[in-house]
């Protein structure tokens, strides 16, 4: 075991982690621990864009953006946070441009902007061009640009280090424990402040746009340290994933004029969202697609998908604005998007919930108090700017705005305090997990359990949910968690033991899936990404509040989930019916 001492430790080198690192490296001695090489992070997969009311191509302002964000989130958004995000959005985009990000440009040489789902002019009048983009590679460019600037600032990366535990001593952050993939060694990082930026958790679904590595490690290990997780039942299903594979086709495709069609060739979104049509918010579109499929208007022999039609767009426009996604269709489906519509279905995409933080990125211990020295930003966190449903392009914005804020706050905090003493035997918990798996005599297979988890989540906790399906999911997950105790791995070595880590990651997924299902079961209403067929309307009286899920450990070591609720911060906008 090795012990390292830093002022600030950042967990994760995606967009949020690197944005934080750029700030904190200039202010404090910072280490960035990441389980992937930084440029492998899933921020690179983001396509469509990053919204900011630059007003480069048409009139726009941050207040409209805030309204859209709040409405998009079905009023579960903390409006103070949304205001900050939308106000700072302009600088966030300009910062990136100054760091070198190659945005697509307008005729005048300004950053170009395109339409995106749910983003409107003057509180819902019509779609507005607000999303700043670089073809359909915006996330790639953000990730590369941030990495380039990390290189410039000499950020210290520990690549392929898996953070497996958070150390809290005396209520204060003491550091993290990491596992070095290359050697199998355990490293303890003592730090005054720790920023979690470890990304999403989509891998508990089968059809997902998320990477194999998005296993919610950050959420899970914070949760196991007794800290709450907020709004985990809200998971976004993106309407246009490649059929059966889940690979994302950006909403920008519809922003450029793409149309959703059912088997009769009908532009069915006209029926569901007369004003915004195909650019209604994601939850609305995803539900519409499933309704079409259920009512027998799906395409293909099994009628289990619909089409994203780009054939009416000029090939030059596709080449210039959507080069990557058209290539995905060619590579993975063998079809030509110039002439054929693309088979799509909703795909699990984004976790609105996560580790609750305030607008400085400080992690909450309960509804009001923070854990000193602990920060979170990015998809792992829930500042709640996305509420019940995130608007497209607001996540890239979130990671930049709150990544920067958390980085600054963490470094500033680190300057004011001394290191917290490490707890006795700091690596104990991690060693127990790892040696437990290595020495396990069990017979259960990681892949099998994960597959069953994904299947139950896809069937029972997807776009449409009912009390019954969610109970089924809870029961299934409980069974799987039981079986997980007897899971065995084949690779017993030290070097690059990915077999071992897949097992650890599965443990995280199981815990988080359970939180999702239990939180969803308790929320007896429909709001944003969470749609209960048995409670199809929004219930602002009972559920206009955030779910806070805590893990309770009984004396005998068994765990259970305790749900609590936290009020929503409402400043300007009173809840209204949501129509697109």
């Amino acid at each position, binding site marked *: 075991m090795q012990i390292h001492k830093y002022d600030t430790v950042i967990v994760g080198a995606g967009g949020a982690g690197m944005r934080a690192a750029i700030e904190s490296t200039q202010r404090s001695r910072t280490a960035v621990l990441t389980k992937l090489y930084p*440029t492998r992070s899933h921020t690179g997969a983001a396509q469509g864009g990053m919204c900011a009311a630059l007003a480069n191509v048409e009139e726009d302002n941050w207040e409209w953006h805030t309204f859209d964000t709040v409405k998009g989130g079905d009023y579960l958004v903390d409006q103070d946070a949304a205001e900050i995000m939308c106000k700072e959005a302009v600088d966030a985009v300009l910062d990136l*441009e100054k760091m070198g990000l190659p945005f697509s440009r307008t*005729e005048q040489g300004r950053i170009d902007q395109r339409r995106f789902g749910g983003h409107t002019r003057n509180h819902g009048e019509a779609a507005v061009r607000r999303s700043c983009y670089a073809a359909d590679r915006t996330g790639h460019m953000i990730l590369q640009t941030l990495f380039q600037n990390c290189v410039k600032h000499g950020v210290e990366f520990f690549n392929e280090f898996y953070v497996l535990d958070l150390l809290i001593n005396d209520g204060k952050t003491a550091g993290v424990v990491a596992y070095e993939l290359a050697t199998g060694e355990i490293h303890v990082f003592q730090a005054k402040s720790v920023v979690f930026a470890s990304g999403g958790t989509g891998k508990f679904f089968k059809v997902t746009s998320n990477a194999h590595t998005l296993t919610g490690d950050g959420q899970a290990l914070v949760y196991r340290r007794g800290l709450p997780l907020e709004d985990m039942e809200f998971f976004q299903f993106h309407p246009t994933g490649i059929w059966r594979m889940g690979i994302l086709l950006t909403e920008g495709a519809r922003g450029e004029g793409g149309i959703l069609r059912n088997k009769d060739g009908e532009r069915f979104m006209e029926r569901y969202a007369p004003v915004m049509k195909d650019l209604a918010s994601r939850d609305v579109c995803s539900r519409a697609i499933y309704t079409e499929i259920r009512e027998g208007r799906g395409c293909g022999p099994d009628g289990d998908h619909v089409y994203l039609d780009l054939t009416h767009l000029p090939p030059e426009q596709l080449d210039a604005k959507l080069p990557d996604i058209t290539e995905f269709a060619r590579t993975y489906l063998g079809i030509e998007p110039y002439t054929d519509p693309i088979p799509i279905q909703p795909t699990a995409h984004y976790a609105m919930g996560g580790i609750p933080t305030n607008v400085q990125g400080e992690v909450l211990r309960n509804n009001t108090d923070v854990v000193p020295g602990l920060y979170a930003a990015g998809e792992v966190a829930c500042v709640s700017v996305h509420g019940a449903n995130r608007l497209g392009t607001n996540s890239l914005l979130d990671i930049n705005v709150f990544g920067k804020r958390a980085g600054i706050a963490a470094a500033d905090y680190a300057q004011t305090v001394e290191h917290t003493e490490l707890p006795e035997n700091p690596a104990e918990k991690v060693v127990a997990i790892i040696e437990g798996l290595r020495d396990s005599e069990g017979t259960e297979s990681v892949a099998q359990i994960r597959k069953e988890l994904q299947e139950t989540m896809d069937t029972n906790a997807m776009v449409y949910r009912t009390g019954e399906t969610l109970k089924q999911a809870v029961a299934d997950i409980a069974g799987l968690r039981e079986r997980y105790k007897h899971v065995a791995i084949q690779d017993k070595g030290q070097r690059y033991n990915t077999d071992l880590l897949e097992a650890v990651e599965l443990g995280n997924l199981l815990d988080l899936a359970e939180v999702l299902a239990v939180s969803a079961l308790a929320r007896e209403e429909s709001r944003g990404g969470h749609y209960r067929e048995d409670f199809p309307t929004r219930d602002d009286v009972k559920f206009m509040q955030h779910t806070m899920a805590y893990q309770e450990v009984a004396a005998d070591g068994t765990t259970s989930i305790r749900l609590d609720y936290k009020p929503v911060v409402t400043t300007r906008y009173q809840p209204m019916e949501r129509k697109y």
Partner: protein
Amino acid sequence: MSTPTVEKHSAALDAAEVGGVKLITVTLRIRRFNPEELPDPVWVDYQLEMDPKERVLDALNKVKWEQDGTLTYRRSCAHGICGSDAMRINGRNRLACKTLIKDVNPEQPITIEAIKGLTVLKDLIVDMDPFFQAYKDVMPFLITSGNEPTRERLQTAEDRERFDDTTKCILCAACTSSCPVFWNDGQYFGPAAIVNAHRFIFDSRDEGAEQRLEILNDREGVWRCRTTFNCSEACPRGIEVTKAIQEVKRALVTRRF
């Protein structure tokens, strides 16, 4: 609006939409290496039933999940965007997640081995540090002088287009590890580093081009490229790598960029 879908069904779309799949038996012949067990690498065959439209990465996953958990490789996004899984498939560098089984002659055993020229650490995992070192050596970040503007720097669409191709790089190392010059001694900067230098040299906002050119003017710089085009063939992002290298060479000669 027209109703294109019903009548305009091409054969490709029909093929893409078939529900039931026909599985075929494929053999993966993987060059395994685990120094904790054996000092030397070995070729191991795995047989599996696969849908030919699946990716080679799916096949590797199937081996790892169902047959041999010790098989080790890097992967993340599974759709060719993160650059984790460059490997040599049937003798050529590719991303496993961007290569469909039907395209690599599945009637024969499919050979899979680590990329060349970087130290193999285990199975398909190589040491990427020298690769990233070369990348860092070309100063891959925007260099400007003077006060920052309050708004964005202006750049015409044409100026933006000038370096578009090389902004696509995902640092997968498929190019560098396919370059015969790089295999020889690993000292050559390699195509990926040059691609990333190109991205800034031809960015109208950047002012560090001279410095970067000077770095690439070096003994191990662009002049070592022998225009073998392996890099261009290997690049999963379709970057015209050799073209970019030639542009850098010409910029060095003419000092115009």
